């Protein structure tokens, strides 16, 4: 699904990723943890193709294709999805319009007819219910005036509608109450399949109680310094990140 080798990237001229390796196979769920400012979000943006994020070395292959050469929207159409840590507002553009436009863009890319409005609406309403948001939100501007938790749920809806091959969730569990955590978990688990891969960036191992990851990685200063299974997350919770640098 995704093969990253020796990835180096700059943000605003400053090196952030410093030789990162990661291999994700179809069907796998990976958790990425690490201290603030270690480059977790940067990795997500580099994969998603955020303008201004410059790749200075290494390679990324996504479903066998060179990801670096793909435009941002091309990556999305090929099935790469990023749930943002800080979703922006787009006033005046309704969630309904926005969702329909992205679903249509992906359908078109697959050479399929756009979904008819009735089934689209039915499906979208379902998704809102699934993440415990009032379907009335469909009429509101994208993230416009949403609370922090509502924004996160809105990201999940987009993910569920687009059914990505690779979903990267950047701290979608942060700032959520306990019930919401379960909502996130259910959404992600409903997406799990042998053809899909999921990357969860998180600070809290409790999310991993609900979504059992196949691998846990620790990102520190732009590199993956430690990989393991779920027990690594528990260990981290107990001992903190300092423990890792001590071990090194």
């Amino acid at each position, binding site marked *: 699904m995704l093969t990253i080798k020796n990835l180096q990237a700059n943000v605003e001229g400053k090196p952030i990723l410093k030789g990162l390796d990661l291999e994700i196979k179809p069907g796998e769920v990976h958790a990425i943890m690490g201290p603030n400012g270690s480059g977790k979000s940067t990795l997500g943006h580099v994969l998603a193709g955020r303008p201004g994020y410059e790749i200075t070395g290494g390679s990324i292959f996504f479903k066998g294709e060179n990801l670096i050469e793909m435009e941002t929207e091309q990556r999305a159409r090929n099935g790469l999805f990023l749930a*943002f840590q800080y979703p*922006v507002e*787009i006033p005046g553009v309704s969630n309904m319009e*926005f969702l329909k436009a992205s679903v249509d863009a992906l359908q078109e890319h697959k050479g399929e007819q756009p979904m008819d409005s009735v089934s689209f609406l039915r499906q979208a309403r379902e998704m809102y219910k699934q993440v415990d948001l009032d379907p009335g939100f469909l009429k509101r501007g994208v993230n416009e005036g949403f609370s922090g938790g509502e924004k996160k749920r809105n990201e999940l809806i987009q993910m569920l509608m687009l059914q990505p091959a690779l979903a990267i969730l950047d701290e979608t569990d942060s700032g959520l109450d306990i019930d919401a955590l379960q909502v996130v978990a259910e959404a992600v688990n409903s997406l799990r399949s042998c053809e899909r891969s999921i990357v969860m960036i998180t600070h809290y191992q409790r999310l991993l109680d609900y979504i059992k990851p196949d691998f846990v990685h620790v990102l520190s200063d732009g590199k993956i310094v430690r990989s393991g299974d779920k027990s690594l997350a528990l260990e981290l919770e107990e001992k903190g990140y300092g423990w890792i640098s001590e071990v090194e």
Partner: protein
Amino acid sequence: MSKQALNHIINNEYAAGFVTDIESDTLPAGLDEDVIAFISAKKDEPEWLLQWRINAYREWLKMAAPDWAHVNFPKIDFDAISYYSSPKGMSDGPKSLEEVDPELLATYAKLGIPLHEQEALAGVAVDAVFDSVSIATTFRSKLAEAGVIFCSISEAVKQYPELVKKYLGTVVSQADNFYAALNSAVFSDGTFVYIPKDVRCPMELSTYFRINEAKTGQFERTLIIADEGSYVSYLEGCTAPMRDENQLHAAVVELVALNDSEIKYSTVQNWYPGDAAGKGGIYNFVTKRGLAHKNAHISWTQVETGSAITWKYPSVILLGDNSIGEFYSVALTNNYQQADTGSKMIHIGKNTKSTIISKGISAGKSSNAYRGLVKVIPRASGARNYTQCDSLLIGDTCAAHTFPYIESSNSTAVIEHEATTSKVSDEQLYLCQQRGLAAEKAVSMIVNGFCKEVFKELPMEFAVEAGKLLEVSLEGSVG
């Protein structure tokens, strides 16, 4: 105008930019009283109208071109313009369609405006004005059944002289301003509408203006009279060929809404805007004003995307008590376009109400200014105005300005003004792209969202098309 017509107004890369190869009677460039006499004679006008034109011309000579607008352009040489051009054989005004040059019909068909009634969109009557003359008006007999008069103004002068004489120049006088005076002197054609008392016009009326000849100006004059208790909705659309030199379009539109009547006037203006380097394009200097009598309601809706320069302030004089004036505007500028547009609401009657919603979008190196005046005279007690003007910037090289003027001489008047400026941010574009949308689609979606309040005022079938027009006009503004 049909949906298809609008599609053509807005087509990619200015598809309306072709030239029709047709022989024309075009007057040599220059303006004097002989030229005016020629135009008047060509149209077989009565003496009073000739005199009216000459008076306007003499006023014009005393006036200077206005320089207060936030626009820059080289001084116009009014002697380098031809003031009359008509497709050969059409100077006598519209005949039956059988006599119209097929080349002309083909032009309108190409623009998506079939003039054969059986092909036209049901429910929309069209007056087609080509350079200086009206070449065809559809659905006239159907309208006549309702007593509605819909014809070219030249024809109205002949057929309904009392109506024309009674109302022409009563809303925009001959000496109103420089361009209105020029128009009054040389106006060639335009549309005339009269809705009789208590009649609800059975169909949308529309005029499609087309400039074809090089080095000509278009000076159309539109006069719409809604008699007591009547209702009409009118839509105009405009295109012109792509030419390297600038062309002048100085129109005057007068609306008379008598007691208890309602006029909805919508414009989709897509004159050629010039190329991406700012060469060529139409100078659109237009005076539009409505006079609202007691309980009357005048509403202007405009979507302005074309023209190199737009100078235009559709206004309402709220003369009668309880009258209502509205102005809904989307003005989009890209590349080197300049727009200075807005509205004037003059409250004279008691309990008069006005609303101004202006949405300015600037991209490229363009400049977009809102200029508005809300005036309340001492006797207009209970007057209310709500003004909202929002600017949206795309990129870092464009500019937006707001010049609101408020003159209130009545303490009971309530005037509210709100203004915002926002920018299409890189983060917003990135979010859209991450969801599979191309940047241009994203911008057009954001812009459409921004304009929603105005689009909902357009006749239904045109609202979607207006959105597409913005999309096309924004081409090249991102990425």
